[in-house]
């Protein structure tokens, strides 16, 4: 074993200098090959740090497109505001790619942000169109479509046990939305909301009947205090 006469310490190392005082070590006799306890730093081995050049490029392009559209819109036709649609579309694209496709966030968050994104996009489109169609037709259609997709996934997915509670929370939220529209908003076309309220209510009941135990356990786990 090597020895540092300055620190009066034996040094177990493949290096020829002391790790404490950095003076050269004395080697007595024949050097025995011994197990090196610590692996030394390997400059070629770095933690994988993602190259975010592409991300920066897309962010820059998104900002450019939005700014250019605002400028063109302002100087060509101030009365027809179409540039917010571009802005919301770009924003939705970012939610879709970064949050829904690329991230490892929970199913609940992904569905929630997708719905918010789609609703924001359609609301902006409605503003530049002449008529009001979103609340009467499109929102209940989105609710019916989402309820159907969630019900289908919970029937065929391998991970139905893990997803059922998330879906159950969405069914409740959707039911509340439909009932609020049916009861409080008289000037919207109510039939689609009624269809959704009944359809969603039945699926809600079915989920509770067949997956009640799973939901209870999941709620105890996820919402424990």
């Amino acid at each position, binding site marked *: *074993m090597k020895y*540092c006469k300055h*620190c*009066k*310490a*034996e*040094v*177990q*190392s493949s*290096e020829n200098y*002391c*790790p*404490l*005082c950095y003076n050269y070590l004395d080697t007595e006799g024949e050097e025995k090959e011994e*197990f090196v*306890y*610590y*692996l*030394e*730093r*390997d*400059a070629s*081995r*770095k*933690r994988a740090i993602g190259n975010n050049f592409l991300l920066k490029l897309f962010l820059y392009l998104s900002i450019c497109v939005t700014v250019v559209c605002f400028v063109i819109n302002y100087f060509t036709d101030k009365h027809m505001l179409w540039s917010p649609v571009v802005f919301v579309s770009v924003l939705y694209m970012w939610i879709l790619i970064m949050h829904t496709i690329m991230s*490892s966030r*929970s199913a609940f968050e992904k569905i929630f942000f997708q719905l918010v994104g789609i609703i924001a996009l359609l609301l902006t489109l409605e503003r530049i169109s002449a008529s009001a169609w979103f609340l009467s037709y499109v929102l209940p259609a989105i609710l019916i479509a989402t309820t159907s997709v969630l019900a289908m996934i919970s029937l065929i997915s391998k991970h139905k046990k893990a997803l059922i509670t998330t879906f159950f929370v969405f069914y409740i939220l959707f039911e509340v939305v439909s009932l609020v529209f049916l009861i409080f908003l008289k000037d919207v076309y109510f039939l689609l909301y009624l269809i959704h309220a009944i359809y969603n209510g039945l699926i809600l009941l079915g989920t509770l009947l067949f997956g009640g135990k799973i939901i209870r*356990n999941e709620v105890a*786990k*996820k*919402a*424990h*205090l």
Partner: protein
Amino acid sequence: MKKRNWYPLDNAAKIFPAVYSEKRPYNFCFSAVLSEKVVPEKLNAALNNILGRIPTFKTRLKRGVFWYYLEENKKPFRVEEEIPDYLGLIDFKANNDYLFKVYYREYKISLVCFHALTDGNGGLEVFKQILLEYFLLLGKKVNPDGLIKPKTTPDNYKERTDNYVSNYKKAKVRIKSPKNLAHSDGTAFDYEGFGLITATFRLDDLKAAAKNYGATLTEYLAGVYLYAFFNTYLKGVNTKKKNVCILVPVDMRKKYNSESLRNYSLFVRVQREYSENFTLEQCIASAVEQIRKGCDEKVLDSINHFNVSVEKNVLLKIVPLFLKDIVLRIGYYFQGENLQSGDLSNVGLVELPKDLKEFVKDVNFSISASHTSKQLVAAIGYDEKINVTFTRNFVENAFEREFISVLTQNGEAVVVKSNYWEKKL
């Protein structure tokens, strides 16, 4: 107690998922040097065998609405070849969601644990079980001698219990927060990882030296820590921050006869203000006095009472997790890490069955540093030796040099190992 496939984090663990990062990974590591080369396949099989009886280790970290929790992990565990920066942040996703890693290299096996799973003494129990199962799978005749639980022992609810809460007593002893704290500092590495230096002493030499000062080994090391800190960072320096406070973990398992494999330790603060003409005797006397006072049951109960009452606070309970993360980060900055100059953790003497001792030549213990707690010391005794491992996240090693020179001043023999992290490549 009802068996379930998820566990709320214990009181001490609750903070770690909120605050861990690349700069503060909150990991600790037990390593063993064996007498023969490691067979990775057997080690992997041993791990997957014993995980069945340590359900809290066979878990992954999940976000709930109000708190994080541990959920049963059904994926298989994989051992990996050792990397130089093994104390660094564990990439849970790349690790099949497990919160611990097991590395192997030639004769060495290492268990690296994220602190949310367990503390040093809990980790040591698991490490011993891994070693036992590994050697049994190799076909060695090893009798556990009642010192290690073999995989045939059914898992016990006591091992999964959060003893902070189950032993919660109302007690109030006011503990003052230290002010004007000095912190160790140096030139940060411009790459990831920690500088590690291990000094190996004869256990009897250090015990005798401690006895000369009327101190236990932990008290002696804490005193030396203060002395080395004064000499390295405060001597001749004009600063208002002259108070040094180190945290010394106390294993609560012995006090409450606990079998918990989760976190169950509290901290005693050892602090002393720098003054000129300080001596080693004064520093050790300070450490002896404060550690003995701090280990008093009432004082420890009051610390536990404070910690658990924070968790039981209804207002904090009902705050959603994403807001709680922010609150805990701010709270930890002001009330946690920033109120310490360093850590000294001594897990004591490792007792292995006689049959196992034949195959285990050395055992070591190390802790990861963080950007606020930059200088840590971990000690472990095994087979008439004690390994003191220093972790730092900056280039300079003057503290280590000072610490080791104090321990060797009476001619005690020392063997030094280092990962030469400061070396330019």
